[in-house]
């Protein structure tokens, strides 16, 4: 095994691994500070923050160090490479680099949105000198409010790492951003008339190590140290990007991509990033309801749930096919399991169907070439299937039903009058039922709708159960590739709504509390297709349902 020596510590690296000094040092538990380097972008070695001493250990045991400092991000390591990142010389270089980066920096941390998660603040504290020796006035460049619909640039805070520029060139391929002028007049700007509005644009804000590029959506909403984060998964499409949900006092403020090589890589798309507003809209269902003949009978959870329980128990002698449960691909694996199992217990003849699967256009592949056509290799895919868990729900349906019944055939059967009772577990925030289709539901004797937002169906339902948005519940989503990832309850939903898992747990008369990890174990032990869930805790990156994909991480995309 090739061995690299980092600050006198030997570290082994894989025989075919291509690492640079920063990555090798990370293996050794040391940090080499860096700004411009990002593992998904090309290397430019322009910020000089990562300067280290590099040398080589010869086979005869002598060590030859290079006389000058080298940028660690640009120096690949091989067997015998020696890296020193804590010598006086390196510390002095780090100090000098930071002083240089801060020469014209306004240091307006109090009004800067990045403060608290800023690369300049953190490194100044760790490696900097604590004061500036500049006597001359600072070179302050005017802000650019319109980099894109969602992005604003505080030009004076930029440290010219060009991460944003490389992102638009290499990952989105749209190349709207560029460096204009030279020397100390360098500035980031957009190509005239080409605002940065591509569907991955929001990522440049995350990539920016300082407070130069800011998201207009989040600007001045909160100080970041007040936010509490939970790991989750974006439900926007079947790519299933790993994200964090940042909230304070039960108000969701932003989503950020979380790096997961098995899922999407390091980024997320803007549809997902900004598309969660429905979760805090006033269209949310906020109280359970039992209706009869168009009149509300009860709005009390205990009453509604127990009446619903006895009503469903009365269906046990109904003949085959008249009781249908439709589970939306927005439901988690646990919810689908609880509901499917409960329905089959109530009436073994109950039919389980898959709720409407919304697809929009075609898979959107990045990077794009100059004509807007995807070019290879693909680095990010926004999938056409706009739901997070079709595969997970299908596995449950396959187990309990043996086939996947599409929602269209359920609608057809309702129209023909062969269905009397329908239980819909929804969750899709975009109207999943048209008014015309909803009119067909009038034929039903009993309609139960468990959903997030009010819809044409929920207004007709005999029982309405207000569920929770994905950020408000625990569960599992299985993405297009069979990667099962855990979502976590990051905040509480509006008063009156309840996490769907809890509703179904109580409805099916189980004892105890809904606990996603224990349910995963139960599911894993009962359903061979989902055996991978039996670990219970899916960890940060999730587990793959197919063992093939487990051993080999999927390429980014």
């Amino acid at each position, binding site marked *: 095994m090739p061995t690299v020596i980092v600050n006198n510590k030997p570290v082994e690296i894989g025989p075919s691994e291509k690492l640079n000094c920063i990555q090798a040092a990370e293996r050794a538990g040391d940090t080499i500070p860096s700004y411009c380097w990002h593992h998904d972008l090309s290397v430019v070695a322009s910020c000089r923050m990562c300067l280290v001493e590099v040398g080589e250990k010869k086979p005869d045991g002598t060590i030859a160090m290079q006389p000058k400092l080298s940028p660690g991000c640009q120096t690949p390591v091989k067997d015998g490479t020696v890296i020193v990142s804590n010598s006086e010389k390196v510390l002095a270089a780090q100090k000098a680099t930071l002083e240089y980066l801060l020469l014209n920096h*306004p*240091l*307006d*941390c*109090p*009004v800067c949105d990045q403060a608290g998660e800023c690369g300049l603040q953190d490194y100044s504290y760790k490696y900097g000198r*604590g*004061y*500036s*020796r*500049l*006597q001359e*006035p*600072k070179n*302050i460049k005017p*802000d650019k*409010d319109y980099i894109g619909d969602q992005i604003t640039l*505080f030009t*004076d805070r930029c440290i010219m790492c060009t991460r944003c520029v490389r992102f638009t060139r290499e990952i989105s391929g749209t190349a709207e951003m560029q460096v204009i002028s030279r020397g100390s007049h360098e500035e980031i700007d957009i190509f005239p008339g080409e605002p940065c509005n591509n569907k991955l644009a929001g990522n440049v804000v995350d990539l920016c190590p300082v407070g130069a590029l800011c998201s207009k959506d989040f*600007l*001045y*909403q909160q*100080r970041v*140290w*007040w936010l509490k984060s939970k790991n989750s998964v974006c439900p926007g499409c079947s790519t299933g990007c790993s994200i964090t949900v940042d909230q304070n006092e039960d108000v969701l403020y932003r989503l950020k991509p979380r790096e997961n090589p098995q899922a999407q890589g390091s980024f997320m798309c803007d549809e997902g990033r900004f598309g969660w507003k429905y979760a805090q809209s006033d269209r949310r269902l906020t109280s359970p309801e039992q209706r009869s003949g168009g009149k509300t009978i009860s709005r009390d959870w205990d009453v509604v749930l127990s009446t619903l329980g006895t009503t469903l128990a009365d269906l046990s002698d109904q003949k085959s096919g008249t009781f249908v449960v439709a589970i939306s691909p927005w439901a988690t694996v646990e919810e689908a399991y609880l509901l499917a199992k409960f329905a089959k217990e109530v009436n073994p003849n109950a039919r389980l169907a898959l709720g409407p699967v919304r697809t929009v256009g075609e898979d959107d592949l990045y990077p794009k070439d100059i004509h807007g056509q995807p070019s290879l290799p693909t680095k990010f895919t926004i999938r056409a299937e706009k739901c997070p868990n079709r595969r997970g729900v299908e596995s449950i349906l396959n187990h309990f039903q043996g086939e996947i019944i599409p929602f269209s055939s359920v609608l057809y059967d309702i129209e023909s009058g062969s269905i009397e009772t329908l239980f819909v577990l929804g969750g899709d925030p975009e109207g999943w039922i048209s008014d015309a289709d909803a009119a067909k539901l009038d034929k039903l004797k009993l309609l139960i709708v468990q959903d997030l937002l009010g819809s044409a169906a929920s207004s007709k339902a005999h029982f309405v159960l207000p569920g929770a948005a994905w950020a408000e519940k625990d569960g599992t989503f299985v993405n297009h590739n069979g990667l099962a990832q855990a979502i976590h309850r990051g905040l509480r939903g509006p008063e009156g709504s309840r996490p769907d898992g809890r509703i179904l747990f109580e409805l099916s008369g189980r004892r105890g509390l809904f606990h996603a990890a224990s349910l995963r174990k139960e599911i894993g032990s009962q359903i061979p297709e989902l055996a991978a869930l039996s670990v219970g805790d899916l960890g940060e990156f999730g587990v793959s349902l197919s063992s093939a994909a487990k051993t080999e991480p999927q390429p980014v995309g």
Partner: protein
Amino acid sequence: MPINPKDIEWVEEPSMNFWESTYLPAVFDGLRTTGQHVADFHPVTEFYPEQKPDLPSHYRGVHRLNRDDKGRVKCVACMMCATACPAHCIDIVAQDAPKDDPHWADRDKFPKSFVIDELKCIYCGMCEEACPVDSIELTNIFDLTGMSRQEMMFDKEKLLSVFDQTKDSAHNPVRTHKGKLGHASDFTNLHTLGPATTVRADDRSAKANSAGVIE
């Protein structure tokens, strides 16, 4: 624990002589003190509220929000005070400054709303300590009354009016004597920061205007 008899010291009452047992010397002694007070009159009672107490200028009373040299609220809505406040009684909603308005051109951010719950506040002064632009300050005003809890929620306008009332009083000096915002927003004239750490005397920063002072 029982008391050790060795630790007990018995004290005998001193016996009184003839004059002392008449009590007259003690009575005259008392009358002498009374006479002294009558002759040399020093009142110690304060006639509050007719007479206000003379409080030191570092007394921590009601807050004020200072104005900058253009009369705008000086606060840049950084929320450092709300972060530092141990009573969690400051609530700020920030807004970006209207860029097209020349009056606000040099500012990025300001408080859309700024509310201090003066009933929750413990008048510790941490907010004043935390403020990077010397916007929030505690004044000398201590006699705070209100007819309802709502009245004691001091909003931006009220806090600014406290500034207008107190800025010229000798007891509530505008402590920095600067309308300037400093580093949080004032980009055109940034001074070298004096070193927060010790430096060699020949270091250029040791000769900076503000050396040794953290602005």
